[in-house]
């Protein structure tokens, strides 16, 4: 039977090879022995999965894609040795201090006194918070 070759270049679920062989596909792969290499592949996959969440067209699809994202995030956390309970603790602490996103506040820009901690914070991340508004010097 005529076959076509496709580039995959992605991390795969554990049963994929077996299942694709049953469908008559030959898959070329290798096992990532190196943690760094595995981390790279996971990182790439997290971005891919997140993109798929936003490409989803139905609620059902969104649920499935969010589940895929969770699976890959769980693998990531396990590789870097971080437990969900520590993440939850950090999340709840920040939630109590700064609140969540319920009020739908869209922050446009901020004027900070030069001795404030906000000034310090945003100055350090000037790439991200670059301001074309400082033209009044």
């Amino acid at each position, binding site marked *: 039977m005529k076959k076509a070759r*496709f580039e995959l270049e992605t991390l795969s679920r554990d049963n*994929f090879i077996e299942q*694709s062989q049953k469908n008559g596909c030959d898959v070329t792969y290798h096992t*990532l022995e190196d943690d760094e290499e595995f981390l790279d592949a996971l990182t790439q996959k997290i971005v891919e999965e997140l993109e798929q969440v936003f490409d989803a067209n139905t609620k059902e699809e969104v649920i499935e894609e969010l589940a895929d994202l969770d699976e890959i995030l769980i693998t990531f956390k396990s590789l870097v040795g971080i437990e969900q309970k520590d993440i939850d603790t950090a999340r709840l602490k920040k939630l109590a201090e700064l609140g969540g996103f319920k009020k739908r506040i869209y922050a*446009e820009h*901020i004027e900070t006194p030069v001795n404030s901690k906000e000034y310090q914070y945003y100055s350090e991340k000037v790439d991200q918070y670059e301001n074309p508004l400082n033209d009044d010097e």
Partner: protein
Amino acid sequence: MTKKKFLLDKLGRDKAIELFKNDNCDIKFHVIESNEEYLEAITKKIFEELEEVLACTSQAQLIEELGDLDEILDALKKLTKIDQAAINESRKNKREKKGGFEKRIYLHYADAPEGSWMYNYCLENPEKYPEIVDEIELP
């Protein structure tokens, strides 16, 4: 007092305005009225948070950033009325059928018979899974 402006252009946490004012910062903001605009702001924030996760240099930072990512993903789930229980259920089902990522399998390419599931799937997603065509075709 000298002040300096920074462009934020993003979704803010609920207590941010109050906290900024306590520190004598003046903040310009608006409350998002439409669900569409809210979804857009959440989407942008999720990608930002993910970038921050991947830019972390310490374990403590990583824990904090993963917490931020969870918080904004929560906002997305609430807006789209998706239950974590439904996500968990879907995750479990797929895991049983297809496995997780424990075996660290990295796929390079596949030779798929015409008409097979993989053949069709790759053809439908040519940007992700492009067909590899030999440069020189023999007669």
